[in-house]
């Protein structure tokens, strides 16, 4: 067993997902199988290999710090599930 149900519940919490016990069971089994397969990477000696994060080399891309394309407030709020007085509205944060 490379991943336990407790670890799956912990990871779900980090990812802000609720899992009931049955779901946690199924995910544990599936993730365990996937992680077991992924363990094949331990066969390879990677000691002197550099890591790749981008397949096509790019340098830092900079631009002048000027305002260009902006969206007005109404458009920016147009998809908000809940809004009030030009703001996004969320449940009370401070008790």
């Amino acid at each position, binding site marked *: 067993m490379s991943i336990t149900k407790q670890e799956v519940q912990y990871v779900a919490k980090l990812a802000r997902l609720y899992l009931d016990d049955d779901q946690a069971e199924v995910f544990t089994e599936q993730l365990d199988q996937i992680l077991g397969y992924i363990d094949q990477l331990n066969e*390879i000696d990677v000691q002197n*290999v550099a*890591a790749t994060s981008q397949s096509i080399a790019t340098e830092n891309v900079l631009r002048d710090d000027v305002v260009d394309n902006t969206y007005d407030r109404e458009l920016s709020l147009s998809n*908000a599930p809940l809004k009030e007085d030009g703001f996004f509205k969320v449940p009370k944060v401070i008790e």
Partner: protein
Amino acid sequence: MSLYEKNLHELHDMLKKKEVSSEEITREYLNRIKQTDDKLNSFITVLDEPAIDQAKKADKIISSSDDFDPLTGIPLGIKDLISTAGVRTTCGSKILESYIPPYDASVIKKLKAKNAVIVGKLNMDEFAMGSSNETSYYGTVKNPWNLEHIPGGSSGGSAASVSARQCCVSLGSDTGGSIRQPAGCCGVVGMKPTYGRVSRFGLIAFASSLDQIGPFTKDVTDCAIMLNAICGHDPSDSTSAKRDVPDFTKALLNDVKGMKIGIPSEYFIDGIDSEVETAVNAAIEQYKKLGAEIVEVSLPHTKYAVSVYYIIATAEASSNLARYDGVKYGYRTEDAKDLSDMYFKTRTEGFGSEVKRRIMLGTYVLSSGYYDAYYLRAQKVRTLIMNDFRNAFEKCDVILTPTAPTAAFKLGEKTSDPLQMYLSDIFTISANLAGTCGVSIPCGFTSNGLPIGLQLMGKHFDESSIIKAAYAFEQSSDYHKTIPTIPNL
């Protein structure tokens, strides 16, 4: 021959000769969608009236000029993760069911500038996570060649719609094979350009170092035309490449004499379907007859590609999908007792199980104590996979492989076994990890009448060579001319 059966370049010629109007073509496709989409479910949103309006606008340009863009007045479909201003863009997910982008993706701006006609938004696996289109919140897409089989994924709607002639061409996206694998399953041409060739601005992100937009077309000529339309540097995407874009139609030469085609033995493995192997071997023989030189190459780290991919792609996804929190857009839960509960319930109710599985896997491989063992190691093996391609391309111009180990499998066959589902992408994933370009073209049919895909991969920014190779094969075959018969129509 009906208008909807014609290719982009044929329709363009007809428009040029004023033999037909864009409105007539568009109405014919919309009618075709009406007749077939109950069975296929390729579309999440059909844009009847806006498409007719766009067509009328295109007709005005066409009537006043003989020299207009090949895409002017051509009906096309867009995978539903490419942002379209004012048109719902769901990403195949419940969490974006009512999301209306305030802006167009850069590729959409380019298509609109050419007065192409967008007929609708195409079905897909949720957040492009899937190989069979079965994870879509909007229902599975069916394979037009056999309604009991998958269309491939994640761009299942993009592939099925072109295959079934519901639109002339379409756009999809490819993170681990999501253009090439469904193109293979549905018997159409599907191209993943080199990473950075096409702007990702406005493409809803899955795995940002792997995602790339590309076209689905009925033939290779149309593929070259589409690449001309969508490639090029975009300041809005910092990873978009500052490279000159050639005229890809110049590669439509029907001449592969002396071209070196590399065959990697690692792609002809146990588990590959014998009919697929036979069809691909026949294609190799065909290339020999056409004068190409077949050379053996080796991509020794191929067997690690799926593992590397499912670490890197899920890690990037877990970070990219953190933005879906119910605050600024998309679904929000009805009843939450506080802010934290709102985040949890929104995401729990809004995401499907494949997306949750990948978010959790990605969170796990990035989490404290596991980062080095999984994520960093995967990034290092990614380097080895890239080196494999660099070495192989010293010996050949293009690499030829099957697109997938089997033809389209049956609906439901792999839904309960995620690992088996992931392994169906084994031949397409490496190109994304290495950033190279790849195309799938039809190269035969199984005895059950399902299409078989042939993959050609090229060097970074050398789409022209794979177009050249694909075109020569296509000109010597008829597979691209066969159209599926949808039963009980």
